[in-house]
C-alpha cells in the first residue's frame, strides 16, 4: 500500500537554527507512526509542516500523491485532524460547538451533525451530558477527548497528535492511552503521533521514527531500534529512558 504522506528532501530553518535538516519520510496508511526524540529534535516541526502551520524552505510534501502548497493546504486540512498538548479548545465555545465548528462552517445539516456527534461520544467515551459545558468546566482528560472528537469530526484520513497526553496525570494518561489505541485500531486510522516518552511510543507505534537534532536517526520497529541500532544515539536514548522507568 502506498504512503499517505511523503516528505521529499524537506528542510526547515528558523531565524537562529535549523529545525529540520533535509529529510525524507513516508507515513504508511492505516498505521500509527510515532515520532520520538528529545525536545527540540524537530518532531513537532515535522508535524507543523504537514498541516501547513509552517512552510518548508526546500523539498516538498505530498499528501495522497498531491503536493502541498499554501493554496492546496486550505482544502487538505479538512482531511487532516490535529490535536495538540493543551487541546487547543476555544474557551468561548462549548464542547459541542468546538466539535461542530468546522462542520457548521461547511454547512453540514443539523441531523447529520447530531448523528456524528453521538458516534464520536461513543467512540471517545465522552458523556453526552457534558457536551454543553465550556472547556474551563472540563477536566484535562475530558478536554483531550473533546479535542480528539473535534479532530475526528470530518472523518480525516490523517490524524496528527502532538504530545496529546503530555499534560495529563498518570492515571488519566493510562486510561486515555488505552482508549486511543482502541480507537485507532477500530478506525484503521492513519496516525502520526509525537511523543518524547519511549513507553508510549512502543505502546502505540507500528513504526517508530527516532529523531535527534533535526534529523531522522532511525525508522523501524522497537525490535529494530533495540537490536539493530543505526547509531550510538539510538542505544543511548533507549537506555536513558529505560533507566528513568526503572528508577
Amino acid at each position, binding site marked *: 500500500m502506498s504512503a499517505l504522506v511523503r516528505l521529499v528532501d524537506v528542510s526547515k530553518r528558523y531565524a537562529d537554527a535549523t529545525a529540520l535538516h533535509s529529510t525524507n519520510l513516508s507515513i504508511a496508511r492505516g498505521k500509527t507512526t510515532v515520532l520520538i526524540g528529545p525536545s527540540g529534535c524537530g518532531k513537532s516541526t515535522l508535524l*507543523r509542516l504537514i*498541516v*501547513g*502551520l509552517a512552510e518548508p524552505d526546500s523539498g516538498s510534501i505530498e499528501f495522497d500523491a498531491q503536493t502541498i502548497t499554501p493554496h492546496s493546504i*486550505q*482544502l487538505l*486540512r*479538512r482531511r*487532516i485532524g*490535529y490535536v*495538540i498538548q*493543551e487541546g*487547543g*479548545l*476555544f*474557551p*468561548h*465555545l*462549548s464542547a459541542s460547538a468546538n466539535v461542530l*465548528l*468546522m462542520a*457548521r*462552517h*461547511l*454547512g453540514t445539516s443539523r441531523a447529520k451533525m447530531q448523528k456524528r456527534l453521538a458516534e464520536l461520544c461513543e467512540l471517545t467515551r465522552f458523556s453526552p451530558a457534558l457536551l454543553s459545558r*465550556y*472547556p*474551563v*468546566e472540563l477536566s484535562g482528560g475530558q478536554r483531550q477527548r473533546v479535542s480528539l472528537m*473535534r479532530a475526528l469530526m470530518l472523518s480525516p484520513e490523517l490524524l496528527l497528535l502532538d504530545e496529546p497526553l503530555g499534560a495529563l496525570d498518570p492515571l488519566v494518561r493510562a486510561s486515555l492511552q488505552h482508549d486511543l489505541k482502541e480507537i485507532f485500531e477500530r478506525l484503521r486510522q492513519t496516525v502520526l503521533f509525537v511523543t518524547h516518552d519511549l513507553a508510549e511510543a512502543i505502546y502505540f507505534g507500528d513504526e517508530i521514527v527516532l529523531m535527534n537534532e533535526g534529523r531522522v536517526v532511525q525508522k523501524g520497529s522497537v525490535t529494530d531500534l533495540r537490536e539493530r541500532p543505526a547509531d550510538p544515539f539510538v542505544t543511548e536514548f533507549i537506555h536513558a529512558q529505560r533507566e528513568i522507568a526503572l528508577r
Partner: protein
Amino acid sequence: MKMFPCSGGRPAKCQTARAACWGSQFLRAVLLLSPFVALASNDPVIIGSKKFTESYVLGEIAKRALHNAGISAEHRPGMGGTIILWQALRTGQIDLYPEYTGTIAQEILRSGGPMAPGEIRSALAKFGVGMTESLGFNNTYALVMRRSEAKRLGIRAISDLQKHPELRLGLTHEFLGREDGWSRLRERYAQPQRNVTGIDHALGYSALASGEIDVKDAYSTDARIEQNDLATLEDDLNFFPKYEAIFLFRLSLPQSAIAVLRRLEGTLDERRMMRLNAEAERTKNYTKAADLYFAERSAGNAASEESLVRKEAHWILRHLQLTGLSLLLAVILGVPLGIVASRGGPLGHGILAFAGIVQTIPSLALLALLVPLPFFGISARTAIAALFLYSLLPIVRNTASGLQDIPRSLRESAIALGLSPAARLCQIYLPMASRSVLSGIKTSAVINVGTATLAALIGAGGLGEPILSGLNLNDHATILQGAIPAALLALAVQGFFDLLDRVLIPRGLRL
C-alpha cells in the same frame, strides 16, 4: 438646527457560511446608543456670539428683534473668540454676530492702525460681510483693580502702574495674544510687571476678588466692574482704540433681516448696556436681559422662558447625539483599525502611533485646529469629529492587544482546523478578544461624555452649554445644571456597557 451626517449604514455582513458574525451583532448593539438626529426644515438665521456676557446679550437682542419681525432665528451663544466667529461668518456657518470696530481693524483686517468706518465697511464687503452703524456705545478694553487697592497705592491711571512692579496681572488669553493687546500696551506704558498670567475672563474676577491677582483686563461696559467694586484705570496715553459695538452680517442675508438689524443702531448707550449686562448676570438669564431691552422700548412683551426640565432634556439629548455618533464612528473605524494594528508591521505601528498622537493633542487645540477646515467650521460636525478622534485610541489599542493576547496554540488550532481567514476572525479571534474590545469602547464612551462638554465652545451645544455660561456668569448653580447630568450620564454609560458585557462576551469567557 443644521443637519449633520448621520451614518445609519448597516454593518457589513461577514462571509461565514451560517454563523452570524459576532462583529455585526456587536455593531447592532452599539447602534442602540446613538439617538437619531432631528432634521430641521427651512434654514433659520443663525446668530453667533462670543464667550462673554455682553456678546450673549447682544446676540439675544438680535434674535428677539428678528423673531418680532417674524423671521426665524437661532442663537448659538458663547462660540469662542474673534477668529472662530469671523471664520464661521465668512464660511456661512453663522449669519451674523456682534463685534466691535477696534477688533475688526486690529484682529480681522490686521490694518496696523485705526480705520475709518467707511474703510472698514469696504474692506469687509470683499468678504461678503456687511456692518451696521454703531449700536450706540463704545466698549473698549480697560484695566481694572480692586478699588481699595487702587486707592491705597494711589493708582488712578494706567501710567501709575509703572511705580508698582510688584503687582500681579491676570489677563485673558485673548488680550495676551491680540495685536492691540498686552505686548503693545506694555511697550507704550513701559510697564515693569513680570508676574503676568493668562486666566479665563470670568475666573479672573474671582481671582481679583480673592487677591490672587491685582490687575486684570476688562470691557468698559462690564457690569462686574460696578458689582465687584473695581476701579477702571484711565487710559491716559490713549492706547486703546475705539470699540464701537456693531453687528457683522453676511451681505447675502435677506433685506428684511438686515433692516431689522439696522433698526437696532444707536439704541444702546453705555449705561444702558451696562444695566443689561448687570441684569443678565443678576438673573443668570440672557433672554431676560434681552427682554428688558425690548420692554424698555415697548412695554409689554412677557418673557418667554423655557422650563429648566425642557432645557435639561434638550442638552442631554444633544449630548447623547454628540457622544453616540462619535462613538459609533469610532467603533466602526476603530475595530477594523485595531485588527490591522494587531498584525504589527509598519502599518500596524503607524496606526497605533497616529491614534496615540491624536490623544495627546489638548481637546481645545484639536477643536481650534478643526474649525478652520472647509468641511467643519462651527458645527456639531466638528465636535463629533474631535470626539471621534479621541475615542479612537482606546478602541484601536484594546482591539489590537485583545487580539494579540490570544495564545498562539489557539490561533494555530483555528488555522489547522481549516477555517477560512474571515471565519477565524469572526468566530474565533474577535469573540475571544471581546472583553478587551468592549472595555476599550467603554473607556472611550465614558471619556467621550466628559469631553463632549467642550463642544459648547464651538456652538455645538450639549451639557457644556450651561457649564460654559455658568462659568462665564460665575454662577455655580448654572454650572451644576450641566455638570451633574454629565456626571450621571457618564455613570449611566458605564452601567449600560457593564450590561452589554453580559450580552456580548461569550459565556465561556466569563466562567
